[in-house]
C-alpha cells in the first residue's frame, strides 16, 4: 500500500502573488507533502541511494513514527523534512513551500522558527548551562536577552528542570539532558518537532519518561511530531508508523486514525507496510 494524499486531493501548482515563487497548493490539513523524493550520496558506481522515490503526506498535528532498520534512510528523511538537506530529486512541500528549491536563507529562517530538532545524542553545547542551551534556540530570532532568559526558564519549568537550569550538561542525567534538548526545540514554539532516535541513548525508564514528555507536549501544544526510531515500543505510541526500507516508505492511511490529542495509552497506531 502506498501513501495517499489526504482527502484524495491532488496538489495543484500556484504562484505566490508577493514573491512570484512557485508554490504548490497543499492539500488542506497537510503540513508536509513529499513526492518522488530521492536522495543519492556520491556519484557513479559507488553512489548510494538513501531514498528512492518517497511519497509521503503528513498532516498538521500528526504524531508520525518513522521506523526501519539501521541505514535505510530514516535520518536522511528527517533531515530533508527539517530543511537540513535537499533531495536529489522530488519535492518536499512544507506549508506549500518546496524545501528542495527554497533559498538557503529561507531554509535557515524556517529552521530558526518552524522546526524543532531533538537528537539521539542530545547535542547540547557542553560549555553552556541547561538554560543557556535552551536560549541558543532564540538567538537566531534576535530575542532580547531578558526575554530569552524568561522563556528558557519557563520551558525548563514545564519540563520539570527548573532546579537544573544552571547546571552544565555533564551534571545532568541522560534523561535530563534529553529534556533540555526538548526544551531547546520547543522554546521557539515550532510547528514541527523532529526527533531522531530521541530515546536511543537512554535506558528503559528514561525512554518511557521521554516518550511520555513528547506525547504530552504533542497533546498539549498541538505540534506535528515526527519521530525517527528503530524502537517498536516508541513507534507504537505514534498515531501512524511509516516503515522505511530500501529507501522507500510505506505509511498508514490517516483517514483511519483520527485520534489526534487522544490519550497516549489508548492509541493503537496504524501500522502498514508495503
Amino acid at each position, binding site marked *: 500500500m502506498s501513501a495517499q494524499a489526504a482527502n484524495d486531493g491532488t496538489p495543484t501548482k500556484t504562484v505566490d502573488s508577493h514573491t512570484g515563487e512557485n508554490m504548490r497548493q497543499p492539500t488542506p490539513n497537510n503540513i508536509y507533502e513529499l513526492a518522488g523524493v530521492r536522495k543519492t550520496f556520491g556519484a557513479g558506481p559507488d553512489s548510494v541511494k538513501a531514498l528512492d522515490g518517497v511519497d509521503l503526506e503528513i498532516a498538521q498535528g500528526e504524531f508520525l513514527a518513522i521506523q526501519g532498520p539501521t541505514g535505510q534512510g530514516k535520518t536522511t528523511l528527517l533531515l530533508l523534512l*527539517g530543511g*537540513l538537506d535537499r533531495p536529489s530529486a522530488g519535492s518536499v512541500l512544507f506549508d506549500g513551500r518546496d524545501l528542495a528549491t527554497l533559498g538557503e536563507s529561507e531554509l535557515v529562517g524556517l529552521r*530558526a522558527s518552524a522546526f524543532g530538532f531533538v537528537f539521539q545524542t542530545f547535542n547540547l553545547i557542553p*560549555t*553552556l548551562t541547561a538554560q543557556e542551551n535552551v536560549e541558543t534556540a532564540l538567538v537566531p530570532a534576535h530575542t532580547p536577552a531578558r526575554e530569552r532568559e524568561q522563556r528558557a526558564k519557563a520551558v525548563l519549568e514545564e519540563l520539570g528542570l527548573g532546579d537544573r537550569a544552571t547546571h552544565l550538561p555533564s551534571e545532568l542525567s541522560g534523561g535530563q539532558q534529553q529534556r533540555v534538548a526538548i526544551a531547546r526545540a520547543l522554546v521557539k514554539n515550532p510547528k514541527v518537532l523532529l526527533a531522531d532516535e530521541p530515546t536511543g541513548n537512554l535506558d528503559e525508564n528514561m525512554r518511557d519518561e521521554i516518550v511520555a514528555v513528547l506525547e504530552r507536549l504533542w497533546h498539549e501544544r498541538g505540534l506535528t511530531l515526527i519521530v525517527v526510531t528503530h524502537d517498536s515500543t516508541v513507534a507504537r505510541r505514534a498515531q501512524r508508523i511509516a516503515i522505511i526500507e530500501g529507501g522507500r516508505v510505506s505509511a498508514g492511511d490517516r483517514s483511519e486514525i483520527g485520534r489526534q490529542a487522544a490519550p497516549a495509552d489508548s492509541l493503537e497506531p496504524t501500522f502498514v507496510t508495503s
Partner: protein
Amino acid sequence: MYFTYLRRELRRRARQAVVVAAGLAIGIGLVMIVSSASAGVKKAQGQVLHSLYGVGTDITVTKTVTFGSGGPQRFNFGGGSGSGSRPSVTPGTHISRDTLRPAAGESTLPASDVAKVAALRGASAATGGLVLTDTSFSGTIPNYSEGGKFSPGGGAASGAGASGSESSGASSFSISSTSVDGVQISSSDVGPLTSSQVTQGSYFTPAQNTAKVAIVSSTYATQHGVKVGSDVTVAANTVSVIGIAQVPSGGAEVYLPLGAAQSLSGLKEDVTTIFVSASSSSGVSSLASQIQKAIPGSTVATSESLANQVTGSLQSASKLATSLGKWLSIVALVVAFVIAGLLMMAAVSRRVREFGTLKAIGWRTRRIVGQVMGEGLALGLAGGLAGIVLGIAGAEIISAVSPSLSATVGPAFAGAGAFPTTFRHAGAAGRTVLVHMSAPLQGGTIGIAVVLAIAGGLVAGAFGSWRAARLHPAAALRRVA
C-alpha cells in the same frame, strides 16, 4: 550569549588556548625585542657617528685633493721656528717647525659655500669648520760623517696627539701632532663643538672669532695638564685656553674659533668641512643630492652612508638585528600564526556536532563564523598582551645588561677619497669607539605588537571559520549519528 559562549569555550580548551596564545606571544615578543634592539643599535650608531661626525649633523660636505694637485706634509726647515731663508742643513743644526694644515688628502671649500648650502631647501642649519692637524717637528741635524743613521721618527700616529722621536748619535728629532678644529661660532647646534659641550670655562663669543683662544677636550686637558687660563701652542702661536669641553671619543683635541683657525692655517676664507642639519630625517637624501649639485666635486656624506662604513661589533649587531633578527621574527610569527590557525581548525573539527546542531536550530553561518573569529581574536589579544609583556621584559633585560658595542673606523678608510675629514683621527691602525647598547621601546613598536596580535587572532580565527563555514549541517549531524 556571545561572550558567555566564547569565554566558556576558551576555558574548556584552556590548554590549547594557552599553546596558541603562547605561540603568538613568543612571535610578537620576538618582534618587539628585535625591533627595540634594532632601535638601540641605531641609537648606538647615532652615538658613534655623533662622536666622529659632529653634533646635530645629518650631512657633511668635504672636498678631497685631486691626485697630483697636493702632496704630502712638508716642513720648510729654516732657522729658528719662524719663516726665513732656505735652511742650512749643517750637521748639528737644530730645527723646529709647527704647522697647521688640513689632514692629508683633504682639500678646502670656499667659506661662501656654507651660505649656499644653508639656503638650500630642506637645510635647517649649516656651519663651516676647519678640520686640521697641528704637526710640530723639532730636532738636530745628525752628523752623518760620525756614522749616525738618519731614520725619521715616525712613531705610529695612532690617534690624536701622536708623537715619535729618533735619536742617533748627536741627532734628536721629535714629531707630534694635535687635532685641531676650527669652529664657526653660531647659535645653531651644528658642528664639531657646541656650547652645550663646554663643562668648564666658557664657549666662544662672536667677538672672539679671530682671537687666539681655544677650548680643549677634557681628555687633552687631563693628558697635558691644561686648565682654563693655560696656554697651548698651535702653529707656533700661543693660544689661551678659555674652556674645557666634554667631547666624545673621536673628536678633536683643540678647538679654535674659525677665524683664528683660518688665520693660523693660512686658509683664509676657506673651510674643510660644512656641517649640515636637515629639517627632517626623511629629507636627508634629497638635501644631499641638492648639495652635490650645488657644490660640484664635493664629497657629500650622510650619517646613513657613514654608518655603512663603520665596522666592528656595532655593525655586526646592526646586521644581526636587520637580517637574522628580522627573519627570525618573521619565521616565529609565521609559525605561530600557522600553528594557531591549525589548532583552531582542529578545534572546529572537534566541534562539528556542536556547529551542526547550531545550524540545525537556525544559527546562520556568519553567526558561527563570528563566534569562531571571536575566539581567535580573543586568543590573539591574549597572546598579544603576553607578547608585549615578553617584549618589554626582553628590551629591559637588554638595556640592563647594556652590552658594549665597538665601532671601528679602520685602515680600510685611510686615504679613501669619499671619506670625510672628520675621520682623520682614524689613523693607520684604526680607531675604535665603544658604545653601550640599549633597547628603547617605542610607541610604534607596541602599536606593531597590537596589530600583530589582532592579525594573529584573525588568521587563527579565519582558519577555524573557513572550516566552520564549509560545514554542512546535514553532513555534520550524519557524522555523529
